């Protein structure tokens, strides 16, 4: 077996078809995770009685266990739950109808939610208290102050963390192959084992991931510069 540089290109082209799946998993999980994260972060910051304890437990559990475990728990647990519910209530649901990618979506959203919760929390805490006091001083209500003053600044402060989470989820999405979703990693395995050229195929997929990561870093770098414009000092 010799290294075949031409096959890297062949594999690269074949792998391109799997990029949308990987990106879909990433984007969906980060988006849902952001919503879950905001809810849990706010309930923890405002110490809402029951919700904050649940949120703390959720964040601790998810951050203390590997992403793979979440995926496997959802993969085996969700059908049990769905079938049990439908049997009990006679809804006629069937867990076999759940598409494989849905397991990835659900489980990765739950994973991302816990990590996002910390991102959102640190972003909100980074905003100076004087900002919300000033907003109240000019007569804004608290929701207005949060929406107009706190959230934009918190977003700017947490952008680097957000981009890290996005990259983390992009890399984490490779786990989806364990529940037989054909993402980039699974596609690479297919290409590799059909052609018996493992090294070349994985090199190609590594290059794709590298490219995607650098792209995300560049884009968020540009957004960061734009969003932090208000911070510049000086007079003009």
């Amino acid at each position, binding site marked *: 077996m010799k290294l075949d540089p031409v096959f890297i290109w062949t594999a690269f082209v074949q792998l391109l078809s799997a990029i949308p799946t990987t990106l879909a998993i990433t984007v969906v999980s980060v988006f849902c995770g952001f919503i879950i994260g905001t809810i849990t972060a706010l309930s923890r910051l405002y110490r809402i009685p029951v919700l904050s304890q649940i949120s703390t437990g959720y964040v601790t559990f998810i951050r203390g266990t590997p992403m793979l475990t979440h995926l496997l728990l959802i993969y085996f647990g969700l059908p049990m739950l769905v079938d049990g519910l439908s049997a009990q209530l006679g809804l006629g649901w069937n867990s076999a109808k759940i598409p494989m990618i849905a397991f990835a979506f659900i489980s990765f959203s739950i994973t991302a939610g816990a990590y996002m919760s910390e991102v959102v929390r640190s972003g909100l805490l980074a905003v100076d208290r004087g900002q919300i006091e000033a907003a109240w001083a000019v007569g804004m209500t608290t929701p207005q102050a949060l929406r107009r003053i706190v959230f934009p600044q918190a977003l700017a402060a947490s952008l680097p963390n957000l981009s890290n989470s996005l990259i983390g989820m992009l890399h984490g999405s490779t*786990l989806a192959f364990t529940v037989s979703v054909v993402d980039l990693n699974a596609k690479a395995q297919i290409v590799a084992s059909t052609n018996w050229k493992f090294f070349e195929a994985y090199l190609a997929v590594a290059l794709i991931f590298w490219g995607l990561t650098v792209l995300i870093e560049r884009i968020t770098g540009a957004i960061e510069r734009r969003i932090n414009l208000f911070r510049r000092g000086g007079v003009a």
Partner: protein
Amino acid sequence: MEYGFDITYVFEFIPKLLDTLNITLFIVAGAIALGLFVGFLVALPRLYHIPVLQNISKIYVSFFRGTPILIQLFLFYYGLPEILKLVAIDLSKAPVLLFVILTFGLHTGAYVSENIRAAVLAVNRGQVEAAYAVGMTGYQAFTRIVLPQALAIAVPVFSNLVLAMVKDTSLAFTLGVMEMTGKAQTLGSLTQRYMETFVALAIIYLIICVTLERVLLIAERRLNRHNNRDQETRSWFKNRKRASLNQLTRELNLDKKEVPRYEA
């Protein structure tokens, strides 16, 4: 799947999974040790701006941080024997664990190098200059002044790295290593009690991570003692016991000074 969830199986599976705990911890320890070594080597050229090595270490870090660890695992497992075959080293009999530790070590190495770099750069330049001014040599200034301060800065990120590594070892099962996740998969398919095995697995990981976090937090506090002065951080959430939206508005009277409270 017609069975219900049976909690007794969880307790039955935990000791069985704990049998493979040593392999998981071995991978973690090996990867962290290798990662610290590699990370230090990679960070040095960038800290001292050595011409060509600096670019190599940049590319190294970018690659290992830019590709998923799972892909790296496969890449090394399949690629390394082929590359080393060119220089007449036969790795086909090498244990899988070697590849796993090597990959995880190189992966952590990239993160550790960034960690070291950030920590050293965070130490005020005046500190080194002051050390030189009192007549220390470069080595003395580094070990006595920069290192203790940099260590304190690096530890929180480093503990995150260790915890991430513990969780990443679950990926080793993809290469057929019988660590905890691999064991759980076999146990699950053997007994057809997947849910219970994975709950047991999650519990074990959770306990390991929480324990490690506590231990590393103690180290962090110990190293950060010199920083425990009053910090002027006025966050709009901090230092309030319970703050509902109404209370926040009511508590605006500014004569009531808050006592700084450090987060646990």
